[in-house]
């Protein structure tokens, strides 16, 4: 058994779990944050992407014990004060979802992608960077559109703020 303590969506949490407990299990089962999904069980599909210390990671490929002391953001923690994050809003506005199961992972990957590229994204980059996230419904068209729209909006907002 391991005792883990971490900050999840701004809240300090701790709990006991098996050494082999995956972070995704800890998030879903111990914390009840079920917006993070398990799709393929094998670290390929990206439905379980969360942010650990600001970087996107597949929470099915990391142990809860490894996340001890870290700061975690899940899809539930993205919206601030009831306002959707610009990436969330863009996925909704651009029909970047169908069954919705991959959506939380897609959104979390997109937020990190936009951050790393400082909003300067082109279509080829988005497509290449999305290779770790599988969607079976949309054909990715509207997902890519949503990410580009969000990146444009966020970098526009940043330019305006500067």
């Amino acid at each position, binding site marked *: 058994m391991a005792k883990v303590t971490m900050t999840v969506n701004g809240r300090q949490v701790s709990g006991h779990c098996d050494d082999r407990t995956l972070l995704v299990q800890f998030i879903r089962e111990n914390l009840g944050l079920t917006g993070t999904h398990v799709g393929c069980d094998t670290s390929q599909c990206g439905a379980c992407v969360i942010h650990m210390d600001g970087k996107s990671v597949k929470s099915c490929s990391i142990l809860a014990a490894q996340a001890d002391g870290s700061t975690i953001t899940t*899809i539930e923690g993205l919206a601030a004060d009831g306002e959707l994050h610009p990436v969330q809003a863009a996925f909704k506005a651009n029909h970047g*979802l169908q069954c919705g*199961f991959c959506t939380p992972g897609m959104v979390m990957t997109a937020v990190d992608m936009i951050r790393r590229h400082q909003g300067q994204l082109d279509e080829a980059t988005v497509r290449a960077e*999305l290779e770790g996230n599988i969607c079976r419904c949309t054909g990715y068209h509207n997902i890519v559109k949503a990410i580009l729209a969000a990146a444009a909006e966020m970098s526009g907002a940043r330019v305006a703020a500067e």
Partner: protein
Amino acid sequence: MNVMQPIDRIRGGVHEKERHESGHKHVSGTAEYIDDIPEPQGTLHGYLGLSQRAHAEILSIDFEAVSSSEGVIGVLTAADIPGENDISPAHKHDEPIFVTDKVEFHGQPIFAVVATSREAARRAAAKVKIEYRDLPHVTDVLEAAAANYPLVIDPLKLERGDIEAGFAKAKNILEGEMRIGGQDHFYLEGQISFAIPGEDDEVLVYSSTQHPSETQHMVATVLGVPSNAVTVNVRRMGGGFGGKETQANIFAAVAAVAAKKYRCPVKVRPDRDDDMSATGKRHDFHVDYKLGFDDEGRIEAVDAVFSARCGYSADLSGPVTDRALFHADNCYFYPNVRLRSRPLKTNTVSNTAFRGFGGPQGMVGGERMIEEIAYAVGKDPLEIRKLNFYGGEGRNLTPYHQTVEDNIIGRIIEELETSADYAKRREAVIAFNRENNVVKRGIALTPVKFGISFTKTEYNQAGALVHVYTDGSIHLNHGGTEMGQGLYTKVAQVVADEFQVDLDRIKVTATTTGKVPNTSATAASSGSDLNGMAAANAAQQIKARLVKFAAERWNVSETDVAFEPNTVRIGVDRLSFNEFIKIAYGARIQLSAAGFYKTPKIHWNRAEGRGRPFFYYAYGASCSEVSVDTLTGEYQVDRTDILHDVGRSLNPALDLGQVEGAFIQGMGWLTTEELWWDAKGRLRTHAPSTYKIPLASDRPRVFNTRLAEWSVNREETIRRSKAVGEPPFMLGISVLEALSMAAASVAEYRIAPRLDAPATPERVLMAIERLRAAARQKG
């Protein structure tokens, strides 16, 4: 009396580009899937124990290590099933939940472990010791035929004209064969069921199922209780694609049996690898064809046999192989034709429904025949397509004797040819190929005609339940299930339009057998056609009562009562909808109705191979251009243009999304998605690490998708729309044909490339090598 000015129109009515009703929940992680439902204290978890042999007698099973494993509550075998140990949807009694003495495929369920956690159940299941005596097994469809394996269900024959006379008349006769691979659904949310025991014989099952009524009936049969004791609920699925039409049943049944036995809630969710090994997929096909045609390329006679790898049981293989035959003509008139199905048993998982339901395999076979003719007469395959389209005197009868009455393929093709600049680009491709030795290009423009309706006539019915509450808010429930396609949104738009209230006044509630009974699977693209009509019918019943009431109360004629945007106009008065509803309630008007719909005009006699199985057809076309590296067989899709017919779209944004997604899924089926069984009969492509569905980077570099906005369904469907789920899947065929052309270029387009599907880089490379060798031989 309030006098309100009406606004122009409601928000979110039909034909609007309304967003998915759960969109805000999906992006914020609050949309609840079955695995997200809070588990009551004491919830147990079931895990299936699967066969490790493809075909074998079970000599003994030792559960000692399983039972003593940590957290295990018990083991379920066939002996624990109170009712029937069978979930055959074809009612053939060939599909046990747990086998007893003989396994028929690698991955077949033998038992289930119930434990305090999913992890404990899964670990325990792996500890079983089973002694097998191996029997000879067959996984391949041709090997099954050679080994005289039986058919899983009666085959179908479609015949029209005089096949012998057709071949006698034909100047050219050609024979060939083709293999078409299967496909795993890879719904992102895997199979899952969660059963909660109730009083007496009752049980409530949350199941990720496209067919709640069948799941209900199966659970009842397995428990040995009447259907009224079982309620099946599903709010949404994380994808279905046909993979949860019958394949959800076993998980629901096992969860229900365990829940009743242990009197605890029980959840069953297989691991992805087990999900892919133990549940059915798209059927692989082998097509044997003989063609007669004239020197122009006009078809005189077609004789083809479609053999399918059905797996160990019938499941839906009958209607799937039937639908393959129904679509082997695609858009083409065959003057003399004989099409036969051969649904063969194999020692593989029982294949099942998958978007298109056999139709895509039939259509790929039909397009291969067109390609054969094109290379034989030395013409652009598109010319051969146009030459053989339905249309003109005496050229509208399908092989199943239904007359094509709504043919718009000519216009679709013409518009796409122009917008995609097909002719000029084909010339450019040929010129490019002359100049380049390593990279070769190909381009193809292919049509789609897809028949809409369940071929089993009785499935073409639907129900809906609409309540208007006294505050004017509306509760909508119908028999269709939501799996991402936007059905809930579309049906709500229909009801909003009927009552002329804003869409946000309507709440669509989870599909449940307790509200709308005896529903059909949400399948065959029929969801909005059937449920939209049933919901409209329910709304119309309530409206009729309200109109009658208003006419009496206000002393006006019924024609002077009208539902206008968020208001009701009664003579010269105008009331808000809410206010009017309150008054109607006060007058004791019933504000709830159960709606019903059955598709008119359709009939089908399978024994005679005649009838009108389809209410109408949906059409579309796509044009794809590819580049192939002839040294490695690797390729990329450079551009795809699509024009697709959805009639008068109920929601153009959702429909466009369906078309884009279907195309990519169809392209995946025909290119990278390869199912592979080893010599022991094990599926080796049972995870996304080895089974390659398209990624964001695989999509065409340029991708232009349009709906045929001028199209109106000539039949009286819901607001003259057309079904959209399956037809665009077959737009992916243009990619296969474009790859085929690129391969053909190495032999100067003189030899039919006969590229089988999926056209993996390996298969493309082999086709290129074969064509080069043949060209050298030909000189």
